[in-house]
């Protein structure tokens, strides 16, 4: 049954009438995902790709039984839209939006924790369960069902890894995009807990990058509690300190957040770390 989303998911799209919202609603529908409702304040009563649009999340949930939510709303409205989804206890709530203020993310994450709602993003590609459900923006055609879970802070690197796994004949259970911002709703550790408990996942690929200490936390968890093999790749080995490498979270400050430190921690925890993305599938194969 994989993690987070699957056949049971009834998806609500916030910002469904926007360019990205409408485009990815179509993509998800084509992938067989049950997109049951959209919400755009002021546009209630209309339809997008035949999906009914509501003014509020409450109405949408009452009418359609939606149980999960993805957000394509602009950054300045993301806080309110996310709080609305969390208030309705949709689970998961997935924020695709880039450029959300960090303090907004802190408030949404705190509320989600209180409500017992799992939050992905902001600034992530969403979550896809191969063969079952697409929430967000990941290219569906890259996926093939199988036993490998993927968790990442980066969108395009996730695609690179999933494509490589599929080419190598290694299918995926679920791919989770955590998001590239300093504060996001889910950590590597939580994603590893979910994969650890999922009978469909037999190995995990963890794609990290410079900045922060999330990969080091993951390493401690792997050493202590994860019984499944982990293959990792860390982006940013050659990045200079003090420069923000695109993602707001990807900054090496002082001795914190360097690739060397993360690689060493993961290897000490028993994970295999690939120097190049292209080497990930081979390392997974020998560990399955």
């Amino acid at each position, binding site marked *: 049954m994989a993690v987070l989303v699957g056949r049971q998911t009834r998806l609500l799209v916030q910002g469904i009438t926007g360019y*990205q919202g409408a485009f*990815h609603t179509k993509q998800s529908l084509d992938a067989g995902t049950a997109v049951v409702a959209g919400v755009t304040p002021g546009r209630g009563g209309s339809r997008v790709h035949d999906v009914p649009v509501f003014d509020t999340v409450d109405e949408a949930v009452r009418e359609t039984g939606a149980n999960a939510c993805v957000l394509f709303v602009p*950054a300045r409205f993301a806080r309110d839209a996310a709080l609305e989804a969390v208030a309705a206890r949709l689970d998961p709530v997935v924020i695709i939006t*880039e*450029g*959300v*203020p*960090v*303090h907004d*993310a*802190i*408030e949404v994450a*705190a509320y989600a*924790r209180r409500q017992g709602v799992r939050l992905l993003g902001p600034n992530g*590609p969403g979550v896809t369960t191969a063969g079952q459900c697409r929430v967000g*923006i*990941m*290219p569906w055609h*890259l996926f093939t069902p199988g036993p490998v879970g993927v968790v990442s*802070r*980066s*969108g*395009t*690197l996730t*695609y*690179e890894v999933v*494509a490589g796994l599929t080419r190598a004949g290694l299918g995926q259970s679920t791919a989770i995009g955590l998001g*590239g*911002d*300093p*504060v*996001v*709703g889910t*950590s590597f550790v939580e994603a590893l807990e979910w994969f650890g408990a999922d009978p469909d996942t037999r190995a995990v690929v963890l794609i990290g*990058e*410079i900045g*922060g*200490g*999330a990969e080091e*936390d993951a390493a401690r968890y792997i050493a202590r509690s994860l019984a499944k093999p982990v293959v990792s*790749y860390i*982006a*940013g*080995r*050659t*990045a*200079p300190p003090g*420069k*923000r*490498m*695109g*993602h*707001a*979270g*990807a900054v090496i400050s002082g*001795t914190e957040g360097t690739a060397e430190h993360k690689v060493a921690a993961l290897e000490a925890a028993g994970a295999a770390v690939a*120097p*190049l*993305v*292209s080497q990930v599938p081979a390392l997974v194969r020998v560990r399955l």
Partner: protein
Amino acid sequence: MKLHEYQAKEVFARYGLPVQTGPVIDRPDAVRGLAIPYPVVVKAQVLVGGRGKAGGVKLAKTPAEAEAHARAILGMDIKGERVGRVLVVPAAEIEAEYYLAFVTDRAARRVAGIASAAGGVEIETVARETPEKIARLDVDPCLGAPSFAARGLGRRLGFTGPLLEEFTRIATILYRLYWEEDADLAEINPLARVGGHLLCVDAKLVLDDNAAYRHPDRPPSEEMTALEREAREHGLAYVELDGDIAVIGNGAGLVMSTLDLLAHVGGRAANFLDVGGGASEEGMRAAIELVQRKPGVRALFINIFGGITRCDDIARGIVKRPPRVPASIRLTGTNEVEAREILSAAGISAGTDPEEGARTAIVMARGAGGASGQGAPGPGGRR
């Protein structure tokens, strides 16, 4: 975005925090006209840390001495940053030094208040060597930092009586400032006891760029180069590096991994450029134009994995603005076939394997007289 000390102190003063402040000058002879009591401290205004150790902070007993210090410090290079301004403040008789900050704690997804009675030194050093000297307050964003919590922090630093109330007031104001200004870090180090009262002798403020739209009065960032600023105006994330192969990709993670890949096969990237998710034809054109303007660029490596970004949009951007330097292109994902047709109609070839693309870029840079790839193993390039 980091602010200079003098800029941070202006914000602190606006919130009613007691700050040690003085005039900011950019010419040594400007010291002469200053009406401030001596002795003074002349402080380099730079965004990097460690200016004291680098000789950027000096005590002066007379105006002549202050002018000499200002002359020495202005124009000084501190960790690659040129000093353009100095702050001149009255020297304080410091009786004790403390540390106080509110900072975004990524792992906890919260705000943390950090305080210590061991101020005046790098807090990372204190945390590593004497962690028992650090007091921490986990802030619930729904509550903020109420007085009772700030007072608890002050007690753990050993404050009593009127000083405890002074500390409590400073901590609650600092939290309000951190939150209202959308800061990632608001730090006072040292928070000093001077004449029996607390004074912010230094001030550090790092602001969240994502929240800039809520703060139209913020000063412009001084951290970026001219090209980096221009890139941001086009919605591109650009960082200058020191190699000779310009890099363009989509997605921060993919671009970082492209830099690593280039280094792995013996090349050196001239820049990091992320055209972003859903990059348009126009964005791609601007990106190609921009990366080639940096002196010393001898080849271009474009690495695109189409997802939300469509490869055909990228290809149209490339065709409209064909690179002046030799370009190695790797392109795969959404609308890849259409993209290849557009490119080949314009006589441009593109591969699907990133490693091959990287090696080709190195051969191109070497062919153009660059340093990349010299001494590296033979190329596996296609062209």
